[in-house]
């Protein structure tokens, strides 16, 4: 090698070395941008979930007070009919009042006796009536029973109403505080899991309001959504992707499907209102109609996800099957579809998760009503989880703040489970060719 070419090659490699430094710096910078973006996203996620969790956690618990309840026959069944219908009409609130008076025999002033009532939930009467319904033999006996406290006592116990507030600023008066302290000292006051929250429908009384009605409503709605949108979406995608000739019509349809995926969900609600309710006269507030509306909304998501996963199946598999003499349908059903299934299911689950979290279209078709009963069928009036959150967020009582957050936790839990399922399916069935 000559000298000149040597020096040339030296400067050449020097130049590369110099540029290397710049490139490394750019790489480090880019890495930092990425990490900080993820960190910011994580921080917001933690703040959001953390605040919901902190606020909602108490909603899963309630304060109970132990009282000695006298199931007096005079009150429940004075005429001795032994008729369950008579038991059901009995004045159980009076029994609760009597039990309270018996618990605090020193309280005699009329005003104070009235104040005593505020310790126990208005729902306690139902609780007792259910006990009698299930076991009429209790009539005439005296039992120690844990009854739900009122939401004011519950809030006070959970610390969301401070003891330091002036008396006039809180619903719990000093006299109540005295009684609560007395009960606490005697071990007649405890905090337990609020089972009613998971088994009851909505209620005007926060301590009696439960999420079960909304869960059932959401389940029924999503069931309809799934059985409508999954087969329709998958079949449409298979036809468009595998079987149809590529014409201007299929292009037109494809563009429209992509547009449909971008339509705001409330528009689907309006469509449902106009077509399903006003034109087809289907029942209002029903999971059937909610499911149909959400199916329309989910359909494009499923079609797009299915087409993407069909496209991801290597063409060599199709050629192999076709070369053996498989008919187009056999190629799809025997080879392409099974390979695309994990992707299709992932897309479907994500679509369903979106449908589960959707409230706007349901508002339009009346699934926003106050519904106490647990829906029993697809045509019963029902509400859904996100709508329940919306309803409770709108309620004035202090205790509903907690319920709102608790319902959000339940909703988020469902969403996390569904997304985890999607991730699991993707990982489990990921194939390499």
């Amino acid at each position: 090698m000559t000298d000149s070419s040597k020096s040339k090659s030296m400067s050449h490699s020097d130049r590369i070395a110099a540029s290397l430094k710049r490139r490394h710096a750019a790489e480090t910078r880019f890495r930092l941008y990425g990490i900080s973006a993820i960190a910011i996203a994580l921080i917001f996620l933690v703040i959001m979930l953390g605040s919901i969790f902190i606020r909602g956690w108490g909603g899963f618990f309630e304060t109970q007070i132990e009282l000695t309840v006298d199931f007096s026959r005079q009150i429940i069944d004075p005429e001795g009919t032994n008729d369950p219908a008579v038991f059901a009409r009995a004045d159980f609130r009076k029994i609760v009042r009597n039990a309270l008076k018996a618990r605090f025999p020193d309280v005699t002033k009329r005003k104070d006796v009235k104040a005593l009532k505020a310790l126990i939930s208005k729902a306690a009467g139902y609780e007792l009536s259910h006990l009698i319904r299930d076991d009429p033999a209790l009539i005439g006996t005296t039992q120690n029973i844990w009854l739900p406290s009122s939401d004011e006592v519950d809030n006070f116990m959970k610390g969301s109403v401070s003891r330091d507030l002036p008396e006039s600023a809180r619903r719990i008066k000093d006299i109540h505080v005295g009684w609560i302290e007395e009960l606490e000292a005697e071990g007649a006051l405890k905090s337990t899991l609020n089972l009613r929250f998971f088994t009851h429908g909505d209620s005007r009384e926060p301590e009696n309001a439960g999420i079960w009605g909304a869960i059932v409503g959401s389940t029924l709605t999503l069931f309809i959504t799934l059985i409508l949108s999954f087969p329709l979406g998958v079949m449409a995608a298979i036809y468009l992707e595998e079987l149809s000739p590529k014409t201007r019509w299929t292009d037109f349809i494809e563009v429209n499907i992509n547009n449909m995926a971008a339509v705001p969900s409330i528009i689907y609600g309006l469509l449902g209102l106009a077509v399903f309710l006003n034109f087809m006269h289907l029942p209002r507030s029903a999971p059937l109609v909610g499911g149909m509306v959400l199916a329309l909304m989910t359909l494009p998501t499923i079609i797009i996800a299915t087409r993407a996963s069909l496209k991801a199946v290597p063409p060599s598999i199709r050629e192999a099957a076709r070369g053996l003499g498989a008919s187009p349908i056999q190629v799809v059903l025997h080879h392409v579809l099974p390979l695309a299934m994990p992707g299709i299911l992932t897309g479907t689950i994500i679509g369903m998760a979106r449908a589960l979290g959707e409230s706007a279209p349901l508002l339009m078709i009346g699934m926003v009503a106050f519904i106490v009963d647990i829906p029993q069928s697809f045509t019963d009036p029902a509400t859904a989880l996100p709508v329940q959150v919306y309803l409770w967020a709108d309620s004035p009582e202090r205790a509903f703040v907690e319920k709102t957050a608790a319902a959000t936790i339940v909703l988020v839990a469902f969403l996390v489970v569904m997304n985890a399922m999607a991730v699991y399916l993707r990982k489990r069935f990921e194939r390499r060719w």
Partner: protein
Amino acid sequence: MKTALKPKPIRVTVRNTQSSSSVQAMKPAADKNAPAPTLEGAKMNIEKVNVFYGDNQALTDIDLQIRVNEVTALIGPSGCGKSTFLRCLNRMNDTIEECRVSGLVMLDDMDVYGPDVDVVHLRARIGMVFQKPNPFPKSIYENVAYGPRIHGLVSSRADLDDIVMTSLTKAGLIKEVRDRLHESGTSLSGGQQQRLCIARAIAVNPEVILMDEPCSALDPIATARIEELIDELSQNFTIVIVTHSMQQAARVSQRTAFFHLGELVEFGDTEQVFTSPRDERTQGYITGRFG
């Protein structure tokens, strides 16, 4: 080899489109009427085939006869239309939207592009092995059993087992997979996968097997095995093979067709094509001067 046993039928040499049409003129258009093919021993008869991809003409006026139980090799530089030609024979081009095929392709006395031809049936008669091994991501057994199953060739599990075992034996794979029939076909090595694909193709018992560069992804040992296999298979099957290896064409085939820029430049006995090519382009290609 078998070539020696067979009576040599009329020699068909195609130098250019001119002479090919003269060959056609020599023989009356009997293919459509007579049940027996005009050319003795011709399994497939291709006349005046033109293929277009959109406006691009990929093949021009191809005339070729593929004789029964022989290996016909297609050679030529990359992009000259060998794969396109091969895929015309079992209508694998049908699914390519912009692809148009004109001309006559006969399998025995059936017009492959005839209006009443069912491609499913056609592909059961003309099997295909692809350049890249493409086993189904299913068990080895299922890979081989798939064809017989969809065509309803078997009535019992025992028959199916039988077909799978004989196909794997014929493909020379049985020793390696006897104990792992239920493992995935994709877990095999490249060469084993290609033999599995061959076993899968012969399980349907086709009359013709088309192979598009079956050894291009394989090492010399695996290639040698597949060549051996092709030799054995040619006793029962008619084989058309695309290859880029002159040696391979010389080793396995009885007849060789040389394609260049979408035209069939030369077609004749392998020995003749390689020892005394008639066209200088063939000469140039086989001696490695271009291609």
